[in-house]
């Protein structure tokens, strides 16, 4: 039966169900429960946070400190330990509180988790999930607001998942936990309270299958995580002008569902990619390259990327609001594309 849940609660339910079903799943992270070291003498301390956004709330009372493990602030330590624990037969689901903090653990992900299987001839796999929080919009400045999707997507051996809807959040997290490879599971802090229907029973959504969030014939808009919602808002506005945009959420960036994107562009002949990351070496450039290489002849206009600027995330509300791509910018990008392709057709018909 489906209920209306937030992404936060859908993730929490997925963790509950996975841990219920498999007692080898353990959680590592900083204050994923909270109150460690006080709760024996002072019980109200237990589960004080449930993680900074409450995603892991309630797991401590249900599964205990043996499986819901508050670590020290030592990301190299517990991410590396996740790898070893996975090799020993556990299924660690670890939390990096903000994706910005990945730097302190990155060697273990980049050089160990991602490479153990390949370097040692396929004899092992590393079934870990690293949950982490992305995104601007909390006035949290440059070191607590990044997205960094492409940093992980760039690395062979890591899978990258970034849901934008509650049902995807649950189904993809359950798939990630069952997957034999290291999965970076990215949760956008501004999407936690987005609601939608979520089936109660456990289910899995396969990786590498994009979601067509809205069908349309005039332009394809690929949104990256929160930007899927920005694209949908833009599509609503465009519809009032009679422009039908198709909005695609790739859902997983590694593997990437290239077929759905190429098929869509073959029908709409125009592509806009909306990405909250910096413009260089991003998912926007990656998808642009894909379509330029394999869908070039389908295009009636140049590909457009709507991204954040090539700058760190600023603190000031006025600057941060200008930093994050807004629906109006997407609308103008689409309008620009359509007028360009009209011009191109006019030129072609003259020649």
């Amino acid at each position, binding site marked *: 039966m489906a209920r209306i849940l937030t992404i936060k609660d859908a993730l929490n339910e997925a963790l509950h169900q996975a841990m219920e079903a498999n007692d080898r799943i353990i959680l590592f992270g900083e*204050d994923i429960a909270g109150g460690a070291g006080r709760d024996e003498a002072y019980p109200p*301390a237990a589960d004080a*946070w449930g993680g900074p956004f409450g995603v892991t709330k309630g797991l401590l009372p249900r599964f205990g400190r043996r499986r819901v493990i508050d670590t*020290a602030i030592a990301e190299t330590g517990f991410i590396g330990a996740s790898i070893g624990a996975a090799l020993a037969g556990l299924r660690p689901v670890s939390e990096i509180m903000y994706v910005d903090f990945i730097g302190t653990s990155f060697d273990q992900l980049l050089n160990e988790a991602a490479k153990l299987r390949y370097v040692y001839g396929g004899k092992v796999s590393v079934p870990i999930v690293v949950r982490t929080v992305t995104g601007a919009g909390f*006035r949290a400045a440059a*070191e607590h607001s990044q997205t960094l999707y492409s940093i992980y997507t760039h690395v062979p051996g890591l899978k990258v998942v970034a849901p934008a809807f509650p049902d995807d959040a649950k189904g993809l997290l359950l798939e990630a936990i069952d997957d034999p490879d290291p999965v970076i599971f990215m949760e956008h802090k501004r999407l936690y309270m987005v609601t939608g229907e979520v089936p109660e029973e456990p289910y899995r959504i396969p990786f590498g299958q994009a979601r067509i969030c809205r069908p349309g014939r005039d332009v394809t808009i690929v949104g990256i995580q929160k930007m899927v919602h920005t694209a949908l808002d833009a599509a609503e506005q465009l519809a009032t002008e009679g422009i039908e945009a198709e909005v695609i959420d790739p859902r997983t960036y590694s593997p990437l569902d290239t077929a759905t994107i190429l098929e869509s562009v073959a029908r709409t002949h125009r592509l806009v990619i909306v990405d909250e990351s910096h413009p260089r070496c991003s998912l926007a450039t990656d998808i642009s390259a894909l379509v330029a290489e394999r869908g070039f002849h389908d295009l009636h206009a*140049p590909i457009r990327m709507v991204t954040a600027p090539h700058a760190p995330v*600023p603190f*000031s509300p006025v600057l941060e609001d*200008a930093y994050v791509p807004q629906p109006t910018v997407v609308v103008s990008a689409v309008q620009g594309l359509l007028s360009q392709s009209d011009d191109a057709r006019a030129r072609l018909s003259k020649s």
Partner: protein
Amino acid sequence: MDELDEVTLAGLWRTMARIRRFDERVSELAAADAIPGYAHTYSGEEAVASGVIPLLREDDWLTSTYRNHGHSIARGVPLAALASELHGRADGVCGGKGGSMHAVDQSLRMIGGMGIVAGGLPVAAGAAFGSAFLGGDQVAVAFFGDGAVHEGAWHEALDFAAMFRAPVLFVCENNLYAETTAVDYHLRTHSVAEMAGPYGIPAVTVDGMDLFAVRTATQGALGPMRDGTGPFLLEAMTYRYGGQYEGDTQTYKPPSETEYWRSRDPLQSFRRTVTSAGRMTDAQLDDIDARVQAEVDAAFHKAEQAPWPDLSALTSDVYASYQEEARQPWPAS
């Protein structure tokens, strides 16, 4: 205290009062949702910044953390510039780009209010190394919390400083909590000071609620450091009155613990010490406090009226050279 003149005593009191009243206002504004973003207040820990920072020279270096208001105030960042930064205004100390977590002044040799735990320690070690390399006798002070001691950066910074005898004063503000996690859970040694030993770094633990104890220990460390004895670690036992951030409900703190530490309040402790010794009167202290309160009111009033940054600030300051070429990878089509 005995060796301090009246002006110095009044200055130290004023520093603690400015930190306390400033962050009290931040807490009020955060509770009313009247200030953007995350704020990490320093209330309860005033004696540490006020015990250490006034002893530094203008050319010494500091690194701070996301809990930096106290360090910035003790270093002399004008309250209005700090208040404006917290409000994201153009006349903020970082032009509104950093906010509360990064509200330090580079021109006062505050290298950073690092948002990443332990991020400042290696940088402080490098600043100390660099100054010594250039023939100076500056020191660098790196503030950090008890939670930071688990990070690789913490260990590697101590190791670097020890190996190259870099004059770094590592100052631990041990406020008993790494976010919500109690120090007696996350630390298996008896103290943070004990952790410096294996690196060959001398260390002491002092009462961080007692400004004079912090000041005396800092003086004892800084003298030899300027003569080239290498790094030192000072652990100040203190208490964070607020949560990890403003809005944290702090259900992990037993009320008896909070009461105990509040009974050892650093401002009250200072007041008792100087009045019972007959060095300052309650009236003198209250007068300074009242003027500080007016200064805080004025600072926030000014900040709330201050202009927002121009949108051009979004992409300025990313690079020091090739700024135009680098900021727009390709012009918008």
